[in-house]
């Protein structure tokens, strides 16, 4: 041990073969550099160890099992194993009518059920050729989707902080998310699984005073976000902890077909709300935040987190515009009595959910039951990146990397 210090080596292996990084002031080196130096050093001895991370583990965000090959503390390979929450959505959808599938889509990404409803419903409407919807319906849909995006991102950034060891921000994020859920409960009757957006319309009209309460919430929420940023986002320890790990270069992200904040965190400006506007998103003004690499390389875990923070602000912008413009009208008039698309017709529709692009492919056989429903899930695609971004890093960073991808196992396994 003393030898190492005298040799000014920044890392060494103790008697049990564990990597010890010298963090004493005299070495004054970023531990990440030391770890990288250690990886490059070929002097590794000892055997690889394979451990199972999950499925019941608090930091896997659900029932994800990772098979991790470790060399000491360093991750050599990560293989995600899925299927612990498989509920057979696609097969099940072949046995129930179009409108009854909506509650099942709630259960895909249960943290953003409105966005799942919206994605599926828009696919069915494309299949039916239903384009003329009442204005009010379109506005309600956008408002619900954006509120749910905020709620979902609050969950994501809260648990991300939790993965990095920050507990208070998690509780604060939940406090504000709860307020959004209260709004949704007032609107649809349920807190998480809304079954609110229906083919051709929505389940209920906005209750009296809802719009005012929603605006009130936004007024309350914006200062809260500033507090949240003071507490966590600008915290130097948190930045140092996350801004140098989980680097995802833009080309790798594109090759893996990553979407959502994971792609945008790598600096790619791609958002379906702007690039392929659906519903009435083309009427609103908002920016597409991308990772800027303010504190480290572009595409780090911090950048993905930062994109989510910024997206919350953009969603607030959209919401303010939508809540001001929302017209009066009947929300039920366009709901079709029978959903029977012509036989053999097929449609694919993708929309921007909080975690990335959610796509539904539906083929009709002429009856009121679909022939095939396929769901392209963004989390499923994004989780395949976990090996790419965690290789060569510490186990503790693996936890943060999972948090930065922000998966929901309901959507991964479907």
């Amino acid at each position, binding site marked *: 041990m003393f030898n190492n210090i005298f040799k000014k080596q920044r890392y060494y292996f103790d008697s049990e073969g564990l990597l010890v990084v010298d963090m004493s002031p005299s070495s004054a080196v970023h531990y990440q550099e030391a770890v990288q130096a250690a990886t490059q050093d070929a002097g590794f001895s000892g055997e690889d160890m394979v451990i199972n991370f999950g499925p019941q583990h608090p930091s896997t965000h659900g029932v994800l099992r990772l098979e991790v090959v470790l060399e000491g503390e360093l991750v050599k390979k990560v293989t995600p194993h899925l299927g612990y929450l498989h509920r057979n959505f696609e097969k099940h959808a072949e046995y129930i009518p179009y409108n*009854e599938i909506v509650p099942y889509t709630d259960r895909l990404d249960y943290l953003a059920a409105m966005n799942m409803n919206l994605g599926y419903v828009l696919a069915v409407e494309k299949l039916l050729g239903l384009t003329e919807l009442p204005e009010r319906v379109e506005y309600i849909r956008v408002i619900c989707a954006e509120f749910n995006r905020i709620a979902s991102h609050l969950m994501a950034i809260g648990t991300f902080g939790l993965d990095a060891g920050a507990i208070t921000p998690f509780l604060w994020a939940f406090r504000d998310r709860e307020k959004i859920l209260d709004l949704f409960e007032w609107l649809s009757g349920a807190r998480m699984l809304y*079954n609110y957006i229906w083919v051709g319309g929505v389940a209920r009209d906005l209750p009296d005073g809802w719009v005012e309460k929603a605006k009130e919430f936004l007024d309350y929420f914006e200062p809260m976000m500033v*507090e949240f940023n003071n507490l966590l986002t600008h915290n130097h320890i948190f930045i140092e902890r996350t801004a140098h790990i989980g680097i995802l270069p833009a080309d790798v992200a594109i090759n893996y077909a990553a979407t959502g904040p994971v792609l945008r965190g790598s600096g790619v400006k791609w958002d379906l709300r702007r690039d392929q506007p659906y519903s009435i998103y083309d009427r609103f003004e908002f920016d597409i935040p991308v990772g800027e690499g303010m504190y480290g390389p572009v595409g780090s875990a911090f950048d993905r987190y930062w994109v989510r923070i910024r997206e919350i602000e953009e969603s607030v912008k959209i919401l303010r515009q939508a809540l001001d413009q929302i017209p009066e009208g009947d929300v039920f008039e366009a709901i079709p009595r029978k959903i029977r698309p012509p036989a053999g017709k097929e449609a694919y529709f993708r929309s921007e959910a909080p975690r990335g692009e959610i796509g539904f492919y539906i083929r009709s056989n002429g009856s009121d039951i679909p022939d095939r429903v396929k769901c392209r899930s963004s989390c499923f695609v994004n989780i395949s990146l976990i090996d790419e971004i965690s290789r060569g890093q510490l186990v503790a960073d693996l936890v943060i990397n999972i948090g930065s991808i922000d998966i929901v196992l309901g959507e991964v396994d479907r």
Partner: protein
Amino acid sequence: MRTYFRNVYRSLITILIGMRQTWRHLFTPSVTLQYPHEKWDLPVGTRQQLFVNIDDCIGCYKCARICPVDCIYIDTVKAKPDEDLGKASTGNPIRQHVVRFDIDMFKCCYCNFCTTVCPTDCIYMTDKYETSVYDRSNGIYHFSKYAPDYAAKLIVDEKEAEAAKAAARAAAKEKAMAAKKAKVAE
């Protein structure tokens, strides 16, 4: 060396900024509700435990058909022609005895479809949500107003009536056949 001290300085400052926020929050009332003792108000139209006002149910099976998880079980017996079962409060005539109306609340996904299709609005969601039970079978709620033995009797009666009808039909057919044969023989 300089980086090191800069890092220490920045960490301290940002922690202090964060601490200021938490310090301020120390003096605001807590948002936590002590659940079993305090409860929050549920909004109108909240979706919890289902309830069926069976006096208004006309036994149309609409709710059972739209249920995505098929957790509503209904059996009906047609009323006899001379029987008057009255009308539901919405004016729809009731033409059948609903001898069985069970909802398996463990399977129910609280999607609210059944309540939207009901023509007499007799199935609806209440604001009761503390419905845990110790046994799975207790999660099945029975709403029928008929006592089990009376319901069984009604079902048996209907079966008998049907059997009698079928027998009568068969007899009539036989008669007709016999008449035909007789005609052919002539």
